[in-house]
């Protein structure tokens, strides 16, 4: 460690140019963008999981996001706008979080040997967070570009055809694990970082956060895998008619 400066008088007593406020703001923004994205992903999971209730229900959720129940017709542009906002947040979060990545091989090697010697859960989970974060740079970019350009291709058949006939399921499968691990570890780290959900003792806080983190991650992974399997099954059964859109039960009598 190096001394910052040689000072003849105590620093706090002297007049000097003040330090930049930027590090504080970047730190808060990193946590804030992460939390918003993680909460969005919770919501996203429940919306896509609507297929587990029924095709009609998933159709209704999709139409809701396209403004169908507000304007009387669908505007997929609404979805694109939302995707655009998430894309901006995602890029901002990636840029902010990249500051924490090992900057060179030496730093990488130091951290990895430290991790191996320590056998310490939170230290090891940081490596998982870095690895999944790195993978998400690419996985999320592909997914969001597709959604940005084809916002209308969401629905019980449209999504299933994309997952199965469009061969998107391998991407979604890898992305599911990366997102849930990254988000779960990240949220609990943010809570510890800012002292949220503090219990009577720090040890108790740690124990509760850990329990909550793994509980939520396990639940979302299970829900995500079941949901993906449902889309794959529907996509497989609908492969012969891939491209055809779903018509909800109540409209079938009037739509030929």
């Amino acid at each position, binding site marked *: 460690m190096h001394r910052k400066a040689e000072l003849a008088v105590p620093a706090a007593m002297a007049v000097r140019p*003040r330090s930049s406020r930027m590090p504080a703001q970047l*730190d808060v923004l990193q946590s804030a963008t992460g939390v918003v994205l993680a909460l969005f992903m919770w919501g996203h999971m429940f919306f896509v999981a609507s297929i587990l209730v029924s095709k009609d229900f998933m159709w209704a959720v999709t139409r809701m996001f396209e403004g169908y129940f507000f304007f009387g017709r669908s505007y997929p542009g609404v979805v694109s706008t939302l995707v655009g906002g998430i894309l901006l947040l995602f890029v901002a979060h990636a840029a902010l979080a990249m500051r924490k990545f*090992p900057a060179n091989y030496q730093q990488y090697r*130091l951290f990895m040997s*430290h991790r191996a010697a320590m056998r310490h859960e*939170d230290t090891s989970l940081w490596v998982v967070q870095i690895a999944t974060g790195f993978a998400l740079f690419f996985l999320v970019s592909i997914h969001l570009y597709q959604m940005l350009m084809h916002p209308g291709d969401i629905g019980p058949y449209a999504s299933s055809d994309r997952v199965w006939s469009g061969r998107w399921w391998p991407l979604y499968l890898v992305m599911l694990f990366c997102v849930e691990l990254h988000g779960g570890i990240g949220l609990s780290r943010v809570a510890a*970082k*800012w002292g949220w959900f503090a219990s009577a003792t720090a040890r108790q806080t740690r124990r509760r956060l850990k329990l909550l983190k793994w509980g939520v991650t396990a639940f979302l992974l299970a829900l995500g895998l079941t949901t993906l399997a449902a889309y794959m099954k529907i996509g497989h059964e609908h492969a012969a008619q891939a491209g055809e859109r779903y018509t909800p039960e109540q409209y079938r009598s009037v739509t030929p």
Partner: protein
Amino acid sequence: MIESPVALPAENQTPRRLRITVLRYNPAVPEQLPRLQTYELDEAVGMTLFIALGEIRETQDPSLQFDFVCRAGICGSCAMVINGRPGLACRTLTTQLPETIALAPLPGFALIGDLSVDTGKWMRAMSERVESWLHSHDVEVDLDRAEARMEPELAEAIYELDRCIECGCCVAACGTARMREDFVGAVAVNKLARFRLDPRDQRDDADYYEVIGDDDGIFGCMTLLACDDVCPKNLPLMTQLAYMRRKMAAVGWRGSDGANHS
């Protein structure tokens, strides 16, 4: 006699044969390359690592270097890496460890030789960097005047953080500090949290921001929390890091000039 909470080997039991491997290197003798040396000895009742090392030095190898002063977890001299994790040799009972024990000097500090490191040099630089002393506007101190009174609860709270023995375990356990040697470490943040509580320290948050408000300071902390897990004094490091982070983040967003003392 006070009953020990730790299970001790019965008197009539055959003692375990401990194998202690030490990473040895003396920077003053650079022609002797770093090497691992294994010592064997019988475990004794109530044996700490410090006692084991002392026995090795007395009976097997007088050249083995390690530090100790108090033998009671107060001086912080005997911190070392024990089976991969930093800890105090004098506070580690061999019964808590497997038969094979690997010891290494604390990383991040200047090596004196074998298990002995110069934490003092690092700690002094840290203290000067974050100015871990009382800052007062009163240039003249009246030594005849009675000290200002302090509520016992506040004195207790300050004392709680003042229990730090500067052993260096939190720094050696910190992945951030390992990667980025300029990172200030939990020990420094805990010190500033202590001075922030103290009404005799007349610095405000903007002043503290000047010394830890950057990516080598509180915002460099990645909340890996190993510091909190290894601290031999069980200091509330996670709580203090979060506390100072909130205070320093507030300075960063307030946008005021921080009103430096002048």
